[in-house]
């Protein structure tokens, strides 16, 4: 059978997942304060 393509690894790494969450929340907070 076909081998599935490698998917986004972002969410597989706990440290990256936390960093991503923090960054997106910060961006969101920044946008709403403008």
């Amino acid at each position, binding site marked *: 059978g076909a081998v599935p393509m490698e998917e*986004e*690894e972002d969410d*597989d790494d706990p440290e990256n997942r936390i960093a991503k969450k923090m960054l*997106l929340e910060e961006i969101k907070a920044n946008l709403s304060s403008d």
Partner: protein
Amino acid sequence: AFQAENEQLFADFLACCSQLTEEHPEVVPYLTGRHQKASPAFLGSAEFRNVLSRCLTRVQARHHKVYVYINEVCTVLKANTQRRKLAISAVPAP
């Protein structure tokens, strides 16, 4: 002293990050905005060069940690944001 080198490193870092954060197109403009607000002294410093150089090398080697390195760069840029001039002339004398 490192201004030109740092600008090149930052451009390379942005280029790398923009490819890796396509799912969140707001990330790169945010990083650019942080860079624009940082103090010129810091942007031309050896400290910033070291952070950028380290983060660029690491993000190129470990794509799955891109947000960790973006956060690191954002944190140092935030810590070195240009201070706003405060209007203190209206403060009454004690």
